[in-house]
Structures are given as structure tokens and as C-alpha cells.
């Protein structure tokens, strides 16, 4: 008997009693949309999100179990005065450090990035284009290489910058600045120069035109950049880890990296969840502000989503 025939016979036995034609036809759905693709899409979404939902559920456990739901309580989040994520000194300081680094990175790198984007938009010549190329390269260079490279700089060359918060900040700012540059520059290109020229025709100085005519139209893009930079740097692991100094400069991601395998209570899950809550609330607040601004500024109806997709893809 040929192999194909054997397989067919085996399959026939395996599926005996199952209304196979019905099932296959339901998946193929010849007259409508291909259902098996939808099964894949939703299967993928469930697969990508379910583990996180389970981790969130476990962080609310009453007992110490890390592997199964076990009662409901806030012990690991807050109410245990010694072991909860909020009260354990190392976990608490990791959360603060993550938020501190992300806020400072956001506040410094976005204005720099916006200025850089405007400069690149106006300025022609070899210097901006090579700066551009360097930034593009840093965008595709694997983060490990950037981390190690910065580590060498701060340990051998710029010794006056101590490891810990200062080095972490410098590293993060360098890396995160690309987001505002991409987003703001895309917006500048789509805006064109008309309003600025109109303002100057009406007697505004170049600086005034920039401030009163161009900048307000950039607000949505700036808010989107603030949001992305915060969310991205709060989750950063490699740069924060390579630039870390004393234990007070440990971030949440580093805490998870160091403790995940030896973790004995769900406090670490709770800590991770706190970070997720921070990220989520940033996105919600940022999204609302973005929407408000985009409504006010004419011609920027595209969602924040498309800004983000453009920056990632």
C-alpha cells in the first residue's frame, strides 16, 4: 500500500464519527471570509494576552502560590507590611527608580528631539544627513551592542559620570530621542511650510512664526512622543541594566530579571502589575490629551495609533 493511502486510511480511522466535512467546510467557508484565518488571529491574541491575565490574577492571591489562583487579597500588592510589593524596600525602590528614569528621560529627550526634528527639517547639507545616518544606525543596532558600548564609554572614558541614575539617564535619552525625531518630522513634512510663511508675511519674526504658527500644530505629535518615550523607557531593560550602579538604581525590569527564577511570593507579579498600571494610565491620559489636541488642531485627524504604528513599522 502506498504511503499516501496508509495516511488516508489512518486519518479516516482517526476522524471516524467526527463530521469532518462539516468542520472543514466551516473553516474554509467557501462563500464568505476565510474562517481559519480568523481562528488564527483570535488564537494568537488569546495566546499573547492570556499569560499576562493569569499573572495579574496570581498577584491577587491570598496564599503564596505562584502557579495557580488561590483566593483573593491585596496582600502582595499593598496590605502586607513586610513582603508586599509596595512595602518591600527593594521592590518599592525599583518601582520609584523606573518611574523616575522614565519621567526624566521623557522630559529631557522630547524637547531635544523636537528641536532636532525642526533643525533636520530646515537645515540642508552634509552635517544633518550624516547625523541622520548615525541615528538610523542606532535605531537598527541591537540594544545589547548599544548597552555594552555605552558601558565601555562610562567605565573607561567619561569616568566623571557615575554609574547609576546619571549614566542610565544619559543612555536612555540617547536611545529614546529617535522617537520624537521620527514622529515630529513626519508631522512637519505633512504640514508643509504654508502657515509659517503666512505668519512671516504678516510680520512675524522667524522665531515668532515657529512659536505661534508651527509649534501649536505640532502639539499632537509632541504628546504622542511623550507618551511613547515614557512607556518605552519605563519598560527598558538593557540600557538600564548596563548603566546601573548601586542597588538603588535597580529598575523593575532588572528586579524581575534577577528574581524571576528564585521568586517565592507573588509580590514580584504584583510589582510587574503596578508597572502595567502605570503604563496603561499613561496611555489613557496621553490618548485623551492627544484626542483633545487633535480636534483643536485642524488637519491632524489621524489617530495616535497611526503615529505609533508609523514609528514602529
Amino acid at each position: 500500500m502506498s504511503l499516501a493511502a496508509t495516511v488516508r486510511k489512518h486519518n479516516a480511522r482517526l476522524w471516524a464519527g467526527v463530521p469532518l466535512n462539516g468542520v472543514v467546510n466551516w473553516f474554509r467557508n467557501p462563500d464568505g471570509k476565510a474562517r481559519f484565518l480568523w481562528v488564527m488571529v483570535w488564537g494568537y491574541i488569546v495566546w499573547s494576552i492570556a499569560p499576562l491575565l493569569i499573572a495579574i490574577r496570581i498577584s491577587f492571591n491570598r496564599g503564596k502560590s505562584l502557579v495557580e489562583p488561590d483566593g483573593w487579597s491585596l496582600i502582595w500588592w499593598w496590605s502586607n507590611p513586610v513582603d508586599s510589593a509596595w512595602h518591600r524596600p527593594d521592590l518599592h525602590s525599583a518601582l520609584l527608580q523606573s518611574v523616575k528614569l522614565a519621567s526624566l528621560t521623557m522630559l529631557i529627550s522630547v524637547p531635544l528631539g523636537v528641536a532636532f526634528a525642526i533643525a533636520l527639517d530646515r537645515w540642508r547639507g552634509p552635517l544633518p544627513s550624516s547625523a541622520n545616518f548615525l541615528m538610523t544606525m542606532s535605531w537598527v543596532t541591537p540594544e545589547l551592542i548599544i548597552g555594552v558600548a555605552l558601558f565601555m564609554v562610562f567605565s573607561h572614558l567619561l569616568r566623571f559620570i557615575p554609574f547609576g541614575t546619571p549614566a542610565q539617564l544619559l543612555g536612555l535619552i540617547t536611545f529614546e530621542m529617535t522617537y520624537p525625531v521620527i514622529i515630529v518630522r513626519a508631522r512637519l513634512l505633512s504640514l508643509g511650510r504654508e502657515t509659517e510663511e503666512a505668519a512671516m508675511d504678516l510680520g512675524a519674526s522667524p522665531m515668532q512664526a515657529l512659536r505661534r504658527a508651527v509649534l501649536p500644530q505640532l502639539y499632537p505629535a509632541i504628546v504622542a512622543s511623550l507618551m511613547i518615550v515614557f512607556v518605552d523607557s519605563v519598560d527598558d531593560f538593557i540600557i538600564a541594566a548596563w548603566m546601573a550602579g548601586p542597588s538603588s538604581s535597580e529598575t523593575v525590569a532588572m528586579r524581575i530579571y534577577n528574581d524571576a527564577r528564585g521568586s517565592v511570593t507573588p509580590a514580584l507579579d504584583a510589582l510587574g502589575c503596578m508597572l502595567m498600571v502605570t503604563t496603561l494610565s499613561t496611555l489613557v491620559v496621553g490618548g485623551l490629551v492627544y484626542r483633545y489636541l487633535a480636534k483643536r488642531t485642524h488637519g491632524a485627524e489621524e489617530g495616535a495609533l497611526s503615529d505609533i504604528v508609523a514609528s514602529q513599522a
Partner: protein
Amino acid sequence: MWVLFALPFYAILAVAAGRFDPIFGTPIAVWNPLRWQLATFSFDIGQLFSRDGIFRIPAIHSLVYTFVAVVICLLIGYPVAYCVARHAGRRKGLILALLMAPFFISYLMRMLAWVNLLQTDGMVNRSLMALGVIHQPFPWLGGEPVTVIFGLVYGYIPYMILPLFGFLDLIDPRLLEAARDLGASRIRTFIRVTLPLSKTAIVSSCLIVGLPILSDYYTNDLLSGSPRTTMLANQIDNLLYAPSSGPGLGAAMVFLFMLALVPPMIWYLRLIGKEDLFEPDEGQE
């Protein structure tokens, strides 16, 4: 700007080709290129190709795991991106938000969730045993290549789906309708029209996922941590923290590693047609 981007690579070279302080056991960077010693580089290259070199097995692991993980990412990611781009309709916004959710959640947190699930008495083992697939708990976290590849796929597949979606979404549906009108079946339309149109997208998304997977060490540390699955990036990470001559060797390896990755990086940038990433396409507006 210049200083912060160009200097680091010079620093790596200076440490890699520098001297070594025998008393403190720390490397000394040598800044004068004329006095560089290239022994660390030749040592590293030797270790990469000799039969029992310290870089040989990790390099093989790196290549095999990355290849398998990227292929799996593509096999899952392409149909998902295709379906969302072509058939999502009104729900596109919602589905896109769900697909992007992993971007906004800490990578380490996503791995921590799996560490919990994959414990010996964890939910994965229990479900598999309940279904009768396995009869004894499988030691997922005991240094299994399967787990490492699985973790890499789980971690990086969002970075595959989003760019693929971006490209596939741009394909003009009229082309596909024309193919169908001319009598091609659905599958034939896909093979003769959609697939050739998305060839660039496929290669560039494979590169954009493959590069970070190659340089990932934390996934491996979290899900395995065993020498049985050490990848090149783990070996570099270990060496840089090791005493004695480790950092010099590690730095030399980082440099070689980077040299090896430059061609795929350039290839990627050329593929997406943006050697200048900051010059947005006019067509996308």
C-alpha cells in the same frame, strides 16, 4: 550627538585591544590606535572556529535558535497580519490595539508570566497531563532549547506582525480583485499576487526580528539559565562581568559580533528603502 554615537564604538575597540592590569585584574583601555594589540581578536576568532572553543557552541546555538524562532514567527505572524490587513474591516482598530498591547507591556513581565506558567507544577504541565499528552511533568525551565525558542517567539512576534501588517495593508485590493476576475482561485491569487508583492516585507520583517533575537540574552537566562542552551549573547554577557581577561575578550567579541551584524542591518535599511529612516514616505500620508 556625534560624540554619544561614535565614541562608544571607539571605546569598545580601545578596551578590546587594550592592555590588562595584572594587579587589579581589570582591563585598561588604550586610546592610541598605534599601540593596540589585536591578540584578543585573533583569540576570539580562534575560539569561534576551533573544535572546543568557548564561542563555538554558543554561536551554533545562536544561529539555530534564531533561524527556528524567525521561521515560526513568520509562519504564525504572516497569516495573522494578512487576515487583519485584508479582512478586519470595521474591527481593524480594536484588533490592532490588541496586537500592539505587547509593545506596551514590559518584556521582562511577559517572560515572568511564562516562568510562572512553565514551572514543574505549573499550569502548562497540569493542562498537558490532564489532556493526556504527557504523563510526567516536563522540566520546561531546566535548560530546554524548546522553551528558549518558544520564549523568543513569544517575545518578538509582535515586532514581526506590525511591520508585516503595515506592508500588507498597502497592497491595493483592486489587484487581488483583478486576479480573481481573471479566474484565479483564492489560493492561486495569494501565491501569484499577494506573496510576490510582500516578498520585501517578509525579508525585512525577518531581519527586524532576527537581529534582536541574535543579541538577546535575558530570555535565555530567564527561561533556561543552563549552559546547555547558552547563546553567543549570553557568552558575551558572562565574559564582560567575569574577572581577569574576560572583559577584553568580551569587548573584542562584541566588536566582531557587530561587524557580522552590519551587513544584515544595511540590507534591512536598503530593503525598506530608507537609508534615511527619518525621511517619511510621501506615499504613506
